[in-house]
Structure formats: structure tokens, C-alpha cells
């Protein structure tokens, strides 16, 4: 075995050792914070739909002053939450697809809906168990609401706000 071969083996082996160390480091580096796999795809889609929505909103006529712009929860477990009306129609309920999700045992999964027709906003009960009340009366059909009208759903009270 010649001296040169042994020197080559010596440095070759050290190179192999370090290649291993550096590969391990690079795997750790690419693994540092995990990967955004499933969530990321969802997020991209969300972003895309948000972009489309903002485009659509740009085309829609500018809301006049004094028109309601948001639904506010004034009483109940979620009180203080504010949901913009821009994404109307809004589904209210306990279900995960509801735009206004209420943590309230007396609320059905798909309880009611807030939608607009022209300038007027309506609330419509979707066949809930415990009913939707505007003022003190239980509604049976789409009912017009205006600023400050109190909608009671279960233990929760919602209102339109500017």
C-alpha cells in the first residue's frame, strides 16, 4: 500500500465524515420549523378567494353613508364581536361554516341568515329549533331590519351598526 494511497484514504474518509455531518445539518435546516403543507394550500386558496372577493367589492357601488356596514353581537357568549356585512349573505349558527359562529347551546347549527335586497337588510330564520326574534316577536319569514334593531338568537343579541 503506497503512502499516497493512504493519504488519499485518510483525507477521503474525513471528507466522507464531514459530508455526513453537513448533510445531517442540512436536513435539520430544512426541517427547522416544519413545513407548511396542508394548511398552506388552504391558505393559498383563501388568499385567492379573498383577492377575488376584493375585486368584486371594488366593482360594487360604494355604500352610502348611513347604511349599516356590520353586525355586532351585543349580548351573549360572543358579545363584542363585529362581522362586516361586506361578505353578505351571512349565515348565523353553531356550525363551522357559519359566518357568525355563536357558542350558544340554544342556537342551531344553521340558525338564521342576514341578507340584503336592494338597500334593505333582512333576517330570515332557517328553521331553527328555538327561533329567531326581532324585537319581542318570533319571526316566521324574512323580516326587514334596520340600524339598531335587536335580533335575538338563543341567548345572543345581534344588531346592525354603521
Amino acid at each position: 500500500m503506497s503512502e499516497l494511497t493512504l493519504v488519499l484514504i485518510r483525507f477521503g474518509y474525513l471528507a466522507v465524515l464531514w459530508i455526513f455531518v453537513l448533510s445531517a445539518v442540512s436536513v435539520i435546516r430544512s426541517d427547522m420549523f416544519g413545513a407548511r403543507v396542508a394548511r398552506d394550500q388552504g391558505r393559498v386558496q383563501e388568499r385567492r378567494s379573498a383577492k377575488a372577493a376584493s375585486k368584486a367589492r371594488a366593482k360594487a357601488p360604494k355604500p352610502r353613508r348611513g347604511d349599516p356596514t356590520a353586525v355586532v353581537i351585543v349580548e351573549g357568549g360572543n358579545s363584542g364581536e363585529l362581522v362586516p356585512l361586506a361578505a353578505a349573505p351571512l349565515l348565523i349558527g353553531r356550525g363551522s361554516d357559519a359566518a357568525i359562529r355563536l357558542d350558544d347551546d340554544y342556537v342551531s347549527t344553521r340558525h338564521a341568515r342576514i341578507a340584503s335586497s336592494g338597500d334593505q337588510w333582512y333576517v330570515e330564520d332557517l328553521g331553527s329549533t328555538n327561533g329567531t326574534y326581532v324585537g319581542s316577536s318570533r319571526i316566521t319569514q324574512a323580516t326587514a331590519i334596520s340600524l339598531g334593531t335587536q335580533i335575538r338568537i338563543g341567548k345572543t343579541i345581534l344588531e346592525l351598526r354603521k
Partner: protein
Amino acid sequence: MSRAGRTPTTKRAPGAGPLMELVHRRRRGAELYLLVLSLVVGVGAYAAVGLGVNGQVPADLVKHGAWLAALVVAAHVTIRYKAEYADPVVLPIVSALNGLGLAMIHRIDLAPTGHPVGSNFAASQLVWMTLGVLGFITVLTSLRDHRRLQSFTYTAGLAAIVLLLLPLLPGIGKTVNGARIWIHLGPMSFQPGEIAKVLLVIAFAGYLVLHRDALALAGRRVLFVDLPRGRDLGPILAMWLVSLGILVFQNDLGSSLMFFGLFLVMLYVSTERPGWLVVGGVLFAVGAYAGYVTTAHVQARVHGWLDPFGKDSPSYQLVQAMYGMAWGGLTGRGLGQGSPQTTPISWSDFILPSLGEELGLTGVIAIILLYALLVERGLRTALICRDNFGKLVAAGLATVFALQVFVVVGGVTRLIPLTGLTTPFLSQGGSSLVANWVIVALLLRVSDAARRPPPEFSDQPADMDSTQVVMMR
């Protein structure tokens, strides 16, 4: 960490998504790639040893390589089926270190002198590695959830203490090289302390998960440090006494240091209170001084550390190792080209100086980096683990490796007094190798649970859609 982002909110801005929603990929392909590289490291070293010593590729290279590859592939396949989200770097690091250790032990086997004649440590080490991998597979297949171990808290603690005391029993205990840490049962002999360290991690973790609040919150503040209450000192004092007992009755400095250090680190990790480190540091200093004053064994180690080149210094071994490493220099003599066999026990406690002689500082840094990566993966597992018991187990197991490597590498390089501990995966020694493979299996089990995406609990299960609460008056 992802729980916070999952709370239902109606105000979620479009596109923002839940915060910190990170999904760990399985990375089994990366693991396989690293495993192939690690086999190149292990088998390459074996071939280089043959070339360096005899000038030819060893005859049993294919057999050795195939055996090693089979073990590693078996471990890898087990991970694929039983712990598919486990950390991808741990197994390759372990495989590389184990392969390198086998090659070095084989190299010292080939040396003409300084070695019990006719023994074949490399072959027996390979058998132990096989047992270790079997243990690894058994742990991963039989233990589906690390949290089950929590119910064995006190059983594990009791078993660990019994195992630690076993070598003191007359008949089966035996003193080897001054330390009474071996037991012999017929033809078998092993160090129960190696298994005890796994059990102690489980026992400490289970205990601290339950009692961390009392240990973390009560106490008073003295000079910027929160000191614990007197009545909470019980466990740390007990552990201190056990460590001192190991030191005095078994003459095993290394294990004593490791068990106490392990307990201290886990106590600190669980309570986040530096006060415990102060208390533990003081206890350690007192214990170390008492050990120094009372036992000749410790005195000899300290003298050999402070003055290894002295006239009647007991540290011939340490001096030989240092000459070996100096001769190795930056790039080493080359595998098979040095003479590591001149250091006594160069295949076990002193395997790192042997590697330093033949691979040089470059190689030793790579090896220490591999240990650092292993410990980092353990601590990372502890960080991302979702339950406290798993956090403590992972942190404890990583600490076992860290302390063991620190104590033995610090010892052989004369940073701290020399204490006998095995270098994980490199040193010849069956009990240590099997125990370390089991530790790796536990670490991967916790890592699998930590990296696995949390199960999707939708706030409304599908069958809840039809369920509605009706108020009855």
C-alpha cells in the same frame, strides 16, 4: 402551539389563517438518504482500517457491511411503520456513530499489542448492537404512546434503585477496574446502572410532572434568586444521597455525577427556576469536596487531572491518550496508521482519544458535532412536544447523552477530572449500547408524538349537525 390559532373566531381576516400552523413532514426519504451516508461512514471506516493495518480490504467487509445495513434498515422500516413522524436525523447519527465505533474497536482488535490476546471485541460489539436494535424495535412496536410510561413512575424509580444496588450484593456483584458496577449472572455480565438511567428519566419525569407546581411556586427570594422551601428539598436531597452512595460504595464517579446532574437539569427544566441550580450546585460542591476528602479513588483522579505528568502520577492512561491525540494533530494519522493500543482500555472509555489519534481534530470535531446534533434533536423534541411528561422525558434523555459525552470527553481531554463513563455508541460495552438504543427508541417515540399533526377536532363533529338543544320547561 397550534391550539391558540384554532379557537373559533368570526373576525378572522381573510387569508390570515391560523397562527403558527406548521405541519412537520415525515421526512422518511431524507432519513433513508442520511442512513445510506451513515453506512458509508461506518463501513468506509471498517474498510479504511483494513487497508491501513493490513494493506488490504478486510475479508469480511461484505459480511460486516451487510449485517450493519440489515440492522439499520430494520430500524428504519420499524420507524416507517410504527413512528412515521419521528425525527429523521436521530437514527442516521446513531448509525454513523455506532458504525464508526465498531470500526475503531476492530482496529484495536487488529493491533498486535496492548489488548487481551485472542479477543474479538468488534464481533461481540456487533452482537450487542444487534441486541440493541432488537430492543429499539421492541420499544417502538410495543410502546404506542409514551404517556403510558407515566403510570410506571414509582415502579421505574424503585426498579432503578434496585438495579443500582444490585452490584453491591455479594455473589453477583463484582469489582472491575476499581468500580463495583457490574453484576455477573452465569456467563452474562452487565452494568445495571445503564438500564437504571433510562428508568430514572421516566421516574423523574413522572414525579416532576405531578409536583412541579409545589417545587416551582413556593419559596422565598434571597439575593435575586428564588430559593425553594425547606420541605421541598426532600427529593433533591434523596437524589444527592443516592449519588453520594454510588460514589462511596461503588467508586463510580461518572455515574454519580451523571445521575445527580440529570436530576438537577430535569428539575430546572420543569420548574424554570434557577434557584434549584444554586441549591444543586452547592450540594454538588459539598458532595464533591466530601468525596475528595474521604475517598482515595477521587483524590487519585483529581491529582491525575491537575498533574498528569508528575513523577508518581496515577494517570498513565490519560498521558498516553494525550500523546496520542497530539500525534494525531489536525488530520490524524489515518485509520490503522496510529498506535491507539498503547493507551490502556483504548477501546472503551478512551475510544475518543483513539479516534483523535487516527482521525485528528477534524474527525473529533465531526464526532462531537454529531453528538451535539443528537442532543439538539432531543431538546427540539422536548420543545415541540405537546404534553409535559413527554417534554420532560425528551429533555431528560437528551441530557443523559449530553452529560455522558461531556463527562467522558471532558475527562479524556483533561478538562475535568477523569471519570469512567462510556462514550455513547462508540465505546465497546454491551449494556451501554443496548441501553442507548432503547433511549433512542424512546426519544423517537416522543418525537413521533410531538411532530405528528394534531388530530383535527372540528368544533362541531359531523353528527352534531342534527343534534339541537331544546329547552324543556
